[in-house]
């Protein structure tokens, strides 16, 4: 939202002082406040980390591991943000990523080398997204159902292709270097994550595609009557989400040196939760990538803190659940003050 409506600069001509829209200013302030809330949460969690684990938390290796942990779901979250702002939902992301990783690591694909493996992952992800998108846009299936079916089917196909085995990638494969090669102490795959976020932000906020995504999600009928090809756009949104799953597959292959049908289990829930915590409306038409990524970082930090402190993962899940509720309640309040 912040990037959607920047606070007006003071270059207005002939605008009456009253018209300097209290509404617009307040809107800007609240959306900032929402991100501020997430940043505060991150700072708070970091403080908790510093206090409880002063010796481990603020180390380079821990911070890098947080970012590495976040990068797989982070890339998926970018695609998910587009889909949800566009008024849909994609439940298949984790399964599609698994399928892409399996397809890219079969012996046959591996024999063509790392570049073909990466391209294969991306094509499989995008292809699966296109199929879901086609069914939703032109077959008029409800997104929830179409992507649920894709989730189940892609997971099954991944199991069939891999015989439920983890397909290992030899450590001399160049893909693995994405994880091992570091620039300024940070693995390459974190740069991929960052790049996807930046490109995603630019596409959402600076291109016609992004603008139309807001329109299609906010009022599909108005978008259609304004001459936007809503169906084609909807299909492309799911293809984009699939593309992100393909990129995420490359990252997870590099991190785990394997492709497996078990990769990415329940990633869809984390991605959707991150998007929602980040202030994106589940009904579409409103949302932000920055918020979603901050939301994801909150989640990742919680996981990290629980691990560092040797706490039960069950409590970790409870904490995450509470955070989702609190975030959504706060959002609703800010929406109410707006209207």
């Amino acid at each position, binding site marked *: 939202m912040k990037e959607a*409506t920047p606070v007006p600069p003071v270059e207005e001509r002939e605008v009456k002082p009253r018209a300097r*829209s209290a509404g*617009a200013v307040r809107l800007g302030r609240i959306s900032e406040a929402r991100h501020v809330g997430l940043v505060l949460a991150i700072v708070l969690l970091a403080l908790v980390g510093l206090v409880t684990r002063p010796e481990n938390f603020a180390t380079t290796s821990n911070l890098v591991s947080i970012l590495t942990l976040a990068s797989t779901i982070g890339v998926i979250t970018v695609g998910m943000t587009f889909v949800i702002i566009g008024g849909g939902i994609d439940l298949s992301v984790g399964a599609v990523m698994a399928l892409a990783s399996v397809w890219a690591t079969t012996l046959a694909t591996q024999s063509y080398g790392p570049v073909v493996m990466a391209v294969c992952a991306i094509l499989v992800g995008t292809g699966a997204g296109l199929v879901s998108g086609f069914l939703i846009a032109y077959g008029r299936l409800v997104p929830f159902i179409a992507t649920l079916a894709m989730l189940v089917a892609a997971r099954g196909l991944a199991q069939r292709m891999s015989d439920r085995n983890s397909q290992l990638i030899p450590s001399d494969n160049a893909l693995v270097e994405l994880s091992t090669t570091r620039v300024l102490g940070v693995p390459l795959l974190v740069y991929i994550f960052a790049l996807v976020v930046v490109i995603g932000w630019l596409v959402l906020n600076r291109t016609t595609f992004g603008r139309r995504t807001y329109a299609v999600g906010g009022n599909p009928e108005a978008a259609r009557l304004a001459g936007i090809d809503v169906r084609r756009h909807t299909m492309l949104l799911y293809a984009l989400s699939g593309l992100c799953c393909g990129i995420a597959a490359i990252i997870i292959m590099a991190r785990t040196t394997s492709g497996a049908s078990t990769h990415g289990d329940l990633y869809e829930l984390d991605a959707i939760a991150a998007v929602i915590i980040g202030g994106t409306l589940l009904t579409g038409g409103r949302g932000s990538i920055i918020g979603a990524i901050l939301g994801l970082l909150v989640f990742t930090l919680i996981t990290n803190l629980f691990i560092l402190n040797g706490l039960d993962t069950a409590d970790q899940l409870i904490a995450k659940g509470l955070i989702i509720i609190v975030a959504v309640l706060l959002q609703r309040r800010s929406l109410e003050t707006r*209207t």
Partner: protein
Amino acid sequence: MSEDAPLLVMRGIVKEFPGVRALDGVDLEVRAGEVHCLLGQNGAGKSTLIKILAGAQLPDKGTITLGGAQVRAANPTAAIRLGISTIYQELDLVDGLSAADNIFLGHEKASLGFTRRAESNRAARELLDRLGHGEIRPGGEVGRLSPAGKQVVSMARALSHDARLIIMDEPSAALSHDEVGNLFRIIRELTAQGVAVVYISHRLEEIREIGDRVTVLKDGRTAAVGLPAKDTPTSQIVSLMTGRNVEYVFPPRRTEPPGAEVLKVTDLVVPGVVSGVSFSVRAGEIVGLAGLVGSGRSEIVEAIYGARRASGRILLDGHAVRPGSTSRAVRLGMGLAPEERKAQALLLDQSVARNITLGGLERFSRFGWIDRRRELAEARTLAETLDIRPGDVRRPIKTLSGGNQQKAVLARWLVNGRKLLLLDEPTRGVDVGARAELYAVIRRLADEGIGVLLVSSEVPEVLGLADRVLVIREGAVVHEAAARDLDEHQVLDLVMATSTGGFR
């Protein structure tokens, strides 16, 4: 109850909405056992009056007396308890429930929270039989019924409340000729039992057939109370409906002849609604479509825009429009200001600027990359040209008045320059003062060489603004003439006359 003591008396009812006085001292008197017809043009205040009776809205002033006692229907449930049932134009049934469930919705036959299905089905059966529709199964899903069947269920619901007064808002709109006959039979049975019916319809012929007395509303006031429905001459009724207090200011028509043909429609057919319509629109010309709601005028516009499946030839500047593809229509140079502004045109959360540029983003973008500085500059220029107020285009559009929102919708189509603008009820929800401005804007656009097709249910608006008028009735063009050669009476006569059989 004697013939002379009225069942319902409404006196001096006033209802104001922000910017509009919808009702300005309306009187209504309905006797038990009569069919009382409510007539008036769109916007005369009929719907508001019904809503007040039904308890959906509270009047600001005025008194309502029912059966001799003053009442106050604070909400729909209270109105029902008083014995007032309403059958709305858009049937308010739940498609997924059975007929019996719908009939007893809100006052279910139940004990300890468990519905007594058999009893409720039996009671529903009786009501449906009484209405002469034994073929409707109480247990059947309402969603599977025809519009007429749903109407019967709605009526059974009204009866289930033991209503003393039943309000029917255009009950015949969705019905075929035979079904209307059946509706009238039911109404006669009800009135024979002493139930009063307030009947709203645009079809004069129906009013003559079923009505006892007529009350005419005009601009939120009562123009006439209790006229005999059978004997009042049509000309008197029409002049009561049209003699208006509000004067519209229309911009002068252009004097030079219009330019080349922009739009050519040949044999346009929308199955069930439009039965073969042909006409054309020239550059710089405003062509008005006059017709009632449901006459097919909106469907004609939607078909031209490619938003609705239809057969026939639609050529824009010689290029064929593809049905079902609005994006092609826009590429060819059309623009639409749809009927439901909020639902069909606006992104309410977004700024005025973004609403303006939505239809023409290509203009400021290269390879999909938007030049936001140019976008904002263009939006500002257009906002200034059309005098959109307030002038800050970064305000959310929902903070603007209806008239200014409509100007933003028009501005959307000026971004890339249009050959043809389709305006469906452009002044709906726009207050009287702002209308004149909109009229001036529309005329100016035409003067700049854009062809305009204007749809409006307000006859004076069509006559005042358009150069040429097509009168649409029941999906066909029944008359075409230069606007200056027509007057309101003539058009209303043409619009309301019921065809003898023919296309439905």
